[in-house]
């Protein structure tokens, strides 16, 4: 059948044209592109192109390629098979029992595809012919960069404010215990003080009178000074410098300089 078709239009020029196309086959972007080129050789408006004739031209091209032992890409062969099928549909009277599109419908669609591809090519050319930036019109030569000024705005909620305050005011409740140096009277200090003062007291005197000045009023300070002074007095007793007594539980503790043993 292809032979017949080729014979119909198979004059020398046609064959030469097919050969020229074959030489060029790598230049085509697929079978549709090739078909479009073939369609143009009909030298008619694409809308009036004869699809039957086009199918025959294409099949002649494929036939020629085979004879010349040129490897055609698979999609060219698929198109050839489809066009052979289309050609048979177009040549045979339509079978009313057959489902699917008629040959005329298929041909119309192919014509539409060709026309659309052609139109898009023209559109692409027109688009590239538009004035182009950097070629026909130009942007500002020294664009000024827009400086980004970042302004930071701080915010807080009333809840955060109150929580912060609560946190500060209660932090003492949970602070790990640390000696408050300011309010601590050390035993060393008490020893120094007692050693200096004890000589003046000839008789029993209340230990509490030896507390440093200004430490009696503040309870915390008094506690610390009392403890230190008591510990210091015990230390002095131990070394034999003092005697110490307490009449009863919780009664005042009294101290007295111890006479040098044997008057020595």
């Amino acid at each position: 059948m292809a032979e017949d078709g080729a014979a119909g239009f198979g004059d020398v020029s046609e064959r030469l044209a097919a050969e020229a196309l074959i030489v060029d086959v790598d230049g085509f972007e697929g079978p549709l592109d090739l078909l479009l080129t073939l369609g143009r050789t009909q030298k008619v408006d694409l809308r009036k192109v004869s699809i039957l004739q086009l199918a025959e031209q294409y099949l002649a091209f494929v036939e020629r390629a085979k004879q010349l032992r040129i490897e055609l890409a698979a999609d060219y062969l698929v198109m050839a098979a489809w066009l052979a099928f289309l050609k048979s549909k177009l040549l045979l009277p339509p079978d009313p029992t057959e489902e699917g599109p008629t040959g005329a419908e298929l041909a119309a669609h192919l014509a539409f595809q060709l026309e659309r591809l052609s139109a898009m090519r023209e559109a692409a050319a027109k688009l590239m012919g538009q004035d182009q930036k950097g070629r026909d019109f130009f942007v500002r030569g020294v664009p000024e960069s827009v400086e980004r000024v970042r302004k930071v705005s701080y915010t807080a909620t009333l809840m955060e404010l109150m929580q912060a305050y609560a946190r500060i005011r209660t932090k003492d409740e949970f602070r790990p215990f640390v000696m408050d140096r300011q309010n601590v009277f050390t035993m060393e200090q008490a020893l120094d003080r007692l050693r200096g003062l004890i000589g003046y007291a000839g008789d029993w005197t209340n230990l509490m009178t030896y507390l440093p000045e200004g430490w009696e009023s503040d309870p915390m300070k008094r506690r610390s000074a009392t403890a230190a002074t008591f510990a210091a007095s015990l230390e002095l007793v131990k070394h034999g410098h003092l005697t110490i007594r307490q009449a009863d539980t919780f009664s005042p503790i009294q101290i007295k300089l111890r006479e040098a043993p044997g008057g020595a």
Partner: protein
Amino acid sequence: MVPDLNNTPTNTLDETPPRLPEELEPVEASLFEAPPMAEQERMVEAILFASAEPVTVAELNARMPHGAEAAVALEHLQKRYEGRGVELRRVGEAWAMRTAPDLGFLMQKETVETRKLSRAAIETLAIVAYHQPVTRAEIEEIRGVSVSRGTVDQLLEMEWIRFGRRRMTPGRPVTYVVTQDFLDHFGLESARDLPGLKELRAAGLLDSRPPPGMVSLGELDEDEAPSNDQNELFQEDETDE
């Protein structure tokens, strides 16, 4: 339509809110009142002049003092630049200053070598522009060959095309649309100004016509047929104006 601002400068304040009586709140008033239109025009001029990229009306408003109406100032400015060596051009939703195309011959020095696009890339670009939003499968159907990843990537990289919404068809394929950069590069106000668009549409060449026998696919596509989308797209553009 556009009032001549230069003749009656006192009237330019018609656009801005009325001034508060001076004796009431003089300081506040001057702080919050929009500058006179002539001044707004200068501001738009300076911003657009300084930028190589198109600037949207929203950004103009954001950069200008409170209460400024960039859209109105733009109208005045466009008129002022009509026929000059530098033009005020609309690019999609943005505006830019560009030299007049007829003076391109003076600019050999400024001409930038653009990357040479392959024929496949140019055709793909044109198909995206005229058929947008368009899927890769549709581009391939129109061109009759498969579109290489590289071609699309190149156009994406040049920022001439970008991804559009996904098509609501099986597989939810991505679509491609052209960008503002594309419009800017080709000096187009919008995709509606593509050369020959009307004729192509009238000839039905932008319709999505499924191959006969592929009815089922066609039906699925119907809601989102590119021709519909395109109309939608262009209507959107129109309402934006």
